[in-house]
Structure formats: structure tokens, C-alpha cells
């Protein structure tokens, strides 16, 4: 059973407000180590450097979108075992299929509540304590 306070999570979203909101919710869940990145490229640099337990990434971002990030992570020797949750819009059904093929761990439709986020994380990481 993973301890929430010990999880290191990277939140990727180009929108600062959404990123901060996600952080707020993660903190409510009890997660303490939260890294942030504004786009796929920044996220990749962080993932290559930091030991991470989970990446939560938006899909729609300039430069490198969430799917491209997922593929880069899965192809990167140091980062490829990091669990990955993709945030999607409610119309992004086909995207989830592609993401599954690329090795995504879970997806979450925006906007989400704290309970849903927790549930989605627990589906991947196991029950949080």
C-alpha cells in the first residue's frame, strides 16, 4: 500500500491555473512531493532527472502534447517505468485508445473531482494510505 505522502508526482499542464488546481487537489489527497511542468518537453527533462512515482499530464498542450510525452516517457531508458495518467476532454475517446496502445496507465476526463482523481490514482498505484 503506497503512502501518499511519499509519492513523487509530476503534474503537466500548460495552463497554470489548472496545474495549481490539480496540485491543490493532490495535496488534499495527501501527496506532498509535486513537481510541475508546462509542456511535454519540460516534463521529459524532469522525468529524466527526478525519481518520479507518477506523471499526471494534460493532453492538449503546445509543442509536445500529452500523447507525445507519453511516448517519449515510455521510450526513455530512465523514465519508462513511470506510471502515467492522461487527462482528456470528454470528446477524446479515440485518444484514449491511442494512449492505451502507447502504454498509458489510466486516463481521466476533465473536469474531475478529488474523489475521481484519487480513484484514478489508486487504480494505478494501489490503495493510498
Amino acid at each position, binding site marked *: 500500500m503506497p503512502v501518499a505522502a511519499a509519492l513523487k508526482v509530476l503534474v503537466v499542464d500548460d495552463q497554470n491555473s489548472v496545474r495549481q488546481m490539480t496540485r491543490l487537489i493532490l495535496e488534499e489527497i495527501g501527496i506532498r512531493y509535486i513537481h510541475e511542468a508546462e509542456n511535454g518537453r519540460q516534463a521529459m527533462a524532469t522525468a529524466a532527472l527526478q525519481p518520479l512515482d507518477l506523471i499526471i499530464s494534460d493532453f492538449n498542450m503546445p509543442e509536445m502534447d500529452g500523447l507525445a510525452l507519453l511516448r517519449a516517457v515510455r521510450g*526513455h*531508458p530512465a523514465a519508462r517505468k513511470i506510471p502515467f495518467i492522461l487527462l482528456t476532454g470528454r470528446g477524446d475517446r479515440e485518444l484514449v485508445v491511442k494512449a492505451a496502445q502507447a502504454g498509458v496507465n489510466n486516463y481521466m476526463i476533465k473536469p474531475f473531482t478529488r474523489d475521481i482523481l484519487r480513484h484514478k490514482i489508486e487504480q494505478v498505484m494501489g490503495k493510498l494510505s
Partner: protein
Amino acid sequence: MAGLDQLKQTFFDECSEALQQIESGLPEILGGANSEDTINAVFRSVHSVKGGAGIFGFEDLVKFAHVFETVLDAMRGGKLAATQEIVDRLLQANDVLSDLIGMSRSGEAIPPDHGCESRAALEQILRENLPGEHADNDAPAPADFEGLDFVPVTAEQLQASGGAGEYRLVFRPKPDLLKKANEPLYILRELRKLGRLDLLAETDRLPALAEIEADRPYLGWTGTLRTEAGRQAIEEIFEFVNGDCELEITSLAPEIPGAGDGGEEPPVPAAVEPEADASLAKAEATRSPQSAPQAPIARETSEAATAAQTKAKPAAAATTTRIELEKIDRAVNMVGELVIAQAMLGQVVHGLPEDVRSRLVQVVDEVAHHTRELKDSVMSMRAQQVNAVFQRMPRLVRELAAKTAKKVRLEMVGETTEVDRSIIERLGDPLTHIIRNSLDHGIETPTERRAAGKSEEGTIRLAAEHRGGRIVIEISDDGAGINSERVLQKARERGLIGPEAVLAEDEINNLIFLPGFSTAEKISDISGRGVGMDVVRRNIQDVGGRISLRSERGRGMTIQLALPLTLAVMDGMVIRVGSETYVMPMSAIVECLRPPASDIHALIGTSGMLKIRGNLVPLVQLRELLDITAAGTSSDERVVIVSDAGEGTRFGIVVDELCGHQQVVVKSIEESYGSVPGIAGATILGNGRVAFILDVEKLSDIASSQNVQTGIARFANGGKEIAAVVNRDWGKSGPPRRTEKAVG
């Protein structure tokens, strides 16, 4: 949630940016240049608004943004062509979006039917063009896509499937390896960088010490390497010794295709074979209970790989950080203080004995140099591209052109020119007004243009560039130009000039800058909003800028705005009058001269006239105006600074001494003293003294109105004083007594 309100503010700030992006992007889509990128950017902006609004619970915003987004998405996917009509609808939708954001921000209740029309229009576009598509999203977001066959992959499964590979290595160098100057130790070190290396040295071939030949390898190694890099990476290390050694690389765990080389191929997702994964996980668990710890070196190399990967991409947009304006302002202030301190330091050093000074001078110069650079870079943080204002103009032109049934093309040049944001903020209204004027009065109707032998489509050109430490913005059109007869007639009707006055064409054209002037035949709702060119001129002058105008009958006109790059630091001329020191903006100075007393003529209603190259220029006696009584320089020593009041009128300011040219930091005095006519602000000079910065134009206004008043008063006195005034020679008479102080 403590930070929620602040986050909402952040969201609304992002919305403002998004709105701008949409506003400037939509017309570009029509233009066709890079339209795919542009549509994507616009789509993303609307999408961001929607996403954020969803998270922060602004339901009305979400609903509207959703329809908006759906139309854009269809355009993005090529299912909908970008026609003028659709883009117009989208621009209207952006207005509604802007309203909704504004209302959400201020917490106003949004009327249920607000934006209904626009929404209906968008929905109609969807209905007409894409029968299958519907933008219905009134239901709350589901947690999962219904009916989608997706099973979340647990971290454990991932760990197992994407785990590191383990290799068994046998490496036995042959004699040639050393002879070719290869070193086994380096190879082993390289291997260790790939992951966890456990090696056992084979020493059985090692002979007795006496028999050892220095260039023969006797050792061999066997062991395991646990690495997340692929086999290829290992083989690369042995690339140069291949053939000069016995080498075996055998994989112990299943390898993952494409691993270690930047990931062109995603690995097989775990979800596909859950059972195989489970067994793998078990197998792996017995081998290595913990996930392979990464050696720091391996991380460095992988970082380098990412860097190389990113480098290969085309030049990306500059990354930005959002900083509160207040923080930058504080930095600007600190730099201002630093500039002052540095000026003081310079003066102190100047006063030191020669031997000490020579050693200090170089350091002080260095400090001065760095201070200047620091100032420039801090100022550039406040700088914004003029595009921030320019981008509002295409739409203005399009709408006005539609309203007036004229054909107008807007050309923009130099949109990326940067200028301080305080100036940008005050540029919007004047520019809007000038362009309105150009379109309303300047550009003719297509019929008129055809008759005049011009193309039906008129052109308005908006250009910005840096010129001599200022930013120059030109708004030119190829319209009819100014009708000087009509201007003259109007000016006479309104009593702005005397009926007999004879004016040069240029002077006539400049009359449009006078308060209370409007030549529009009738007040149209386009340019006749009670704001005339005089307000435009005042706006520009308020930020230390100048406005000038050129017009050619039948060919068009050009209005030029010359503005300072920043308001915080200014080029100033330090002057002395009596015992007082003032600073005059360099931008206001045309020339400085020391005229002989014979060139100065007394004239009733003035403080004297100066004859320069055959022209008479009214003088402003700063000493009188500011009521300075301390003795000054004798009249022959006095300096006249010729200044430009705009619209070609010049006047001379009489001072005692020019002390030098200096960059000064402008400090507002309004907070402490309110608005003082004639004083633009204050600054601290190198010697630590406070000096007022003069508002030159205002001074000339004050001086002329006072002169007129005293002149009238003297006439009223039965002409008693006239003789005295006429006889008053420059400098001989003392300052006249005043009942009213100009500045005080």
C-alpha cells in the same frame, strides 16, 4: 481551500491572454498563412478557457466555450472551411466569451439568455455543415468513457513489463587490444554507466610477475549487467575493440524493442497481455526485489539524450514566466536608485585627489557600464511588443470598413517592436482614434477612389520602429488627405483663428489638433464621439511623446507618433536658474543658444521675442515664471533653450546655465503634492539633490496666458505701464511682482 480565489484570478488572467490569442488568430485563419498552426492555437485557447472554467465551476462559460470549441475543432479537422462569414461569427462568439469571462470574474449573475444569439449562430453552423456533429454537453462529465474497453494498468504491471534488461557478459581482451591503444578499464567504466554491473575478474591466465609483458592483457571478466539501456548501447561500447577480444553478450530477461534509443517505438502496452505480464513480474521479483536503482551517471546521460532530442526540434517559442508587475516595478525602482547611487559615486570619485582617483575611475566606469546594462535589461522586462495594441486594429478596420461600405486593407509593419508597457497601455485609445479618423475621413468610398484613378481598396499602414532611442509609430493612409480649405473654414467658423489670419498649408493641417475641432460633416458614430484630435495629442504628450502630421491633398496623410521607450528613466538636460536646478526633458529641446541682447525684442503681451534666423520666437522667462529671486547670471550669459510645443510652434526658455545632460530617474510627485502645473515630476541628481522635471509645454501655456493677462491688465490701467513694458530691456528690470504664483 485557501488558494482557490487566487487560482481563479490566475485563471482569469489566462483567459485574457486566450481572448487576445483568439482575437488575433481568427483573422489570420482567413489570411491562410500558417493557418493550421493558427487554428490549433485558437482552438487550444478556447479549450483552455473551457477546461479551466470546468475546473473552477463556471458552468455557463463551459457551455458556451464548448460550442465555440466544437466549431473550431471541425475547422481544425478540415471538416469546416474558414469563410469570412464563419470567422465573423467566431469573432462575435469571442466577444460573448469575453463578456462571460468578465461577468464570471466580477461575480455578476449571467443573464440566462446572454450570448444566446451567438450560440445559436454557432450551432447553426454546425447543423448546416456537419449534420452528425452536435455540441451538446449539458450533462456533467463522466468519470469514464462508456463502453470503452480500457483496463487501468497498475504500476506493478508496468514495472514488470517495462523493467530493465539483464545481460550476461564475457569480455576477454586479446593482445591486439592493448596494442591498438584501447584500455579495458575505460570500457568497464563505460559499462558501469549503463546500470548495475557485477563483474568477476578471471585471473587464471595471470603469469608470474617476472613473466608479465606490459602490453599483453592477461585478465578477463565475466559478470552481469542490469541496465535499462538496450543491447545496442552495450554493443556500442565494445565497438572499437570488436575483434580484439572475446565477447559474449547474452540477454537474461526479455528485451524491449526500441528501448534506449529515444523511443520511436512505444513498447507493447501492458494492458494487452496481462497474464504474461503477471508471470514476468513474478520472475523479475525473484531476481531483483527492488526496482533497479539508477546510477547518477546514467541519469546524466539520459538527460543529455533528452537535450539532444529537444535540440533537433525546430526553434520553439520563447519560454516565459509570469511575474507580477509589482515585482518588476520594484526591480525598476531599485535600478533607479542604483542609477542615482552610481551617479553620486561618480561625483564623489571626481572630487578625490588625483592618485586615489586614477585607481578608482576604472572601477567606477565598470559600475556605470553594468548599471546601464542592468537598467536596460530590467526595462526590457517591462517591455511589450506593440503587437499588443496593433492586434486590435485589424478587427477595428474590418468592422468600420463594413459599416462605411469602404474597402480597406490594413498593413502592419514592425509589430514586434518593443516598448514599455506603461506606454503600450496608453497607446490604444490614440491609435484607435487615428485609425477611425483615417477610415472615416481619409479613405474615400470605392466610387470616389475609382473616379480619382486609385484602386478601389484603400490602404492604411501601421508601422512601428525604433529610431534614436524612441519608438516611432506611423499611421498612414492613401486617402484624400486633409481638405485644407474646409479645415480653414471650420477653424474660422469656430473662432479658432482670426478671420484675417494667413496660414501655410502645414499650419492649417495642424489646426485639427486644436481643442474643439471636428470637420466631420455630421457627427458619425465612428469618429465623432466627442473626442477630437486634441485629446489624441494630449494623450501622446502625456507620455512624453510628440505627434506630427503630413498630408498631401488627394494622396493621403501620415500621422507620426514619437514616443519614449520608457517612462521610468529619461534623458534630461540639467539646467540652473538662480540657485535652483531643474531638469528639462531632452525630447523637448530643439536647440540651445546664447543670443546677444540685441536679438531680443520686447513686445507687449510677451516676455520678449527672440529673433532666430529671421524668425521671431516668444520667450518664456523661467525666472519670472517660477518666481526665483536669487541673483542669476548677467543677461549676456543667459542661455535660451528652444523648445517645440508640437504643431510647429516654437518658443525659447531663458535659463542661467546648462549643467549637463544626464539620464534621470523619474519619480512621481503626484502622490505627495497632487498635480502641479508645469512640473512633470522629480528626480534625484548625482549630488543627491532633488530637482524638479519641467513640463515644458505646460510652462509655455502658463507663460502665455499670464502674459496675456498682464498685458490686458496694463491696457486697463490706461496704458500707464505700456511705456515701462516697451522700455523694459532684457534683464535690466527685476522680476515683475505677481499676485499669483505659477508653481507653488
